[in-house]
């Protein structure tokens, strides 16, 4: 990042975005240096020089009792040496126009201050305005690197655990069931459940094509529950190592003519729904193309039950539903 013309690869670009996010998420107190070495204003500059050398530091806050009164940097020391007045006190050379930052501020605030003021270090104050630590650009770099490392490990762990779920658990038949309650007319959240389902499948190790096809099928089913039911309904997804079973069921009003509903372009959706981009009469047709098996049962008494299956065994492909089509 220090280079003036950095070459940014795709991988870099991805991590930069996360670093930017972290700059907003991380608080100053998470990255600052605590146990700060401090000076007092009445110390001589000679004593300050000695302690800079001994502590191997290039700047330190100056405290009078409990209160922060200034900051002495290596530049101040050089100025003093040039004047030949090493006998004078810290109070004579320290800068007392203090630029400080708070423990609870986001890291990005410090980055802005560093750019704007060109200072090398910022004293950090707690909520009682007492000195809590000190912050340099190096502290920020270290803090960001540590946070990225934590992120990476956490994500790896989650991914590992999810993709090994079925191998780790021993039973005669293991399955994972996801349920989503879908409200009638809830267009704002329309498709949210389906996106969760798609992400879950990817996380569990499904290939992108399978996740996409299942996603499209449940999205259409989800929108049907929002548009066509009396009270909404439920999506129930059962994931097994060899197949994914997706069900959408509701309590009514039921479909008048199931055969007609399966025809491309046939729709009972209102003008309002069509304006929102739905109700093209392609939903069920789409679903049938995406999944391996599909069954639609509907009655006035018991509502509608849409049943979709995706086989994960490569041997069992789309033959069944396409056989029917031809």
């Amino acid at each position: 990042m220090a280079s003036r013309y950095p070459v940014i690869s795709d991988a870099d670009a991805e991590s930069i975005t996360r670093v930017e996010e972290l700059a907003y998420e991380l608080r100053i107190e998470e990255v600052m240096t605590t146990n700060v070495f401090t000076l007092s204003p009445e110390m001589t500059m000679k004593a300050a020089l000695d302690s800079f050398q001994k502590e191997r530091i290039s700047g330190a806050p100056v405290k009078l009792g409990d209160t922060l009164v200034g900051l002495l940097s290596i530049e101040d020391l050089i100025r003093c040496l040039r004047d030949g007045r090493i006998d004078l006190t810290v109070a004579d050379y320290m800068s007392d126009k203090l630029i400080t930052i708070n423990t609870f501020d986001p890291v990005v605030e410090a980055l802005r201050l560093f750019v704007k003021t060109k200072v090398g270090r910022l004293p950090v104050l707690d909520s009682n305005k007492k000195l809590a630590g000190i912050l340099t650009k190096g502290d920020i770099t270290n803090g960001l690197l540590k946070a990225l490392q934590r992120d990476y490990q956490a994500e790896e762990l989650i991914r590992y655990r999810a993709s090994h779920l079925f191998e780790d658990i021993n039973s005669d038949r293991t399955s994972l069931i996801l349920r989503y309650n879908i409200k009638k007319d809830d267009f704002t959240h329309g498709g949210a459940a389906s996106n969760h389902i798609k992400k879950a499948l990817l996380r569990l190790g499904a290939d992108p094509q399978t996740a996409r096809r299942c996603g499209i099928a449940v999205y259409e089913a989800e929108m049907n529950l929002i548009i066509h039911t009396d009270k909404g309904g439920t999506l129930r997804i059962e994931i097994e190592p060899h197949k994914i079973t997706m069900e959408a069921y509701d309590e009514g009003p039921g479909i008048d003519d199931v055969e007609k509903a399966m025809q491309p372009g046939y729709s009972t959706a209102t003008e309002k729904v069509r304006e929102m981009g739905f109700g093209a009469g392609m939903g069920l047709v789409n679903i049938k193309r995406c999944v391996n098996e599909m069954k639609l049962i509907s009655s006035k008494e018991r509502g509608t039950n849409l049943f979709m299956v995706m086989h994960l065994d490569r041997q069992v492909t789309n033959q069944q539903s396409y056989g029917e089509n031809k």
Partner: protein
Amino acid sequence: MKIKDILDISNGVLLTPGIDLETETKGAFGADLMSDVLASIQPEAVLLTGLCNPQVVRTALIADIRAIVFVRGKMPAVETIDLAAAEEVPLITSPLGLYELSGRLMQAGLPSLEMAMNHPFDQD
């Protein structure tokens, strides 16, 4: 074609700053009906649409769409932009109409990613 090139050709405004525009798209598809999109779009496409609600973004996520361009200067609702920013789907608004923009992109070499209705899903 990269998303930044599409931004140029469409005379568009990027509504989701901070998202990587170096991503490659394989082609484009234009529709206002989300079912048409789900039925016919192949992965890694850019979607040209006049529909502005959050479902466009959700449809994009389900169908592995790389970017969305709103035509005729349409501005999506704040919820749509927020959702797109959170899910890192670039949104562009273009003053051009659907036909004009489709023509320009096609001329610039961006193919159609629409698949025929009888095209089996396993072969895409």
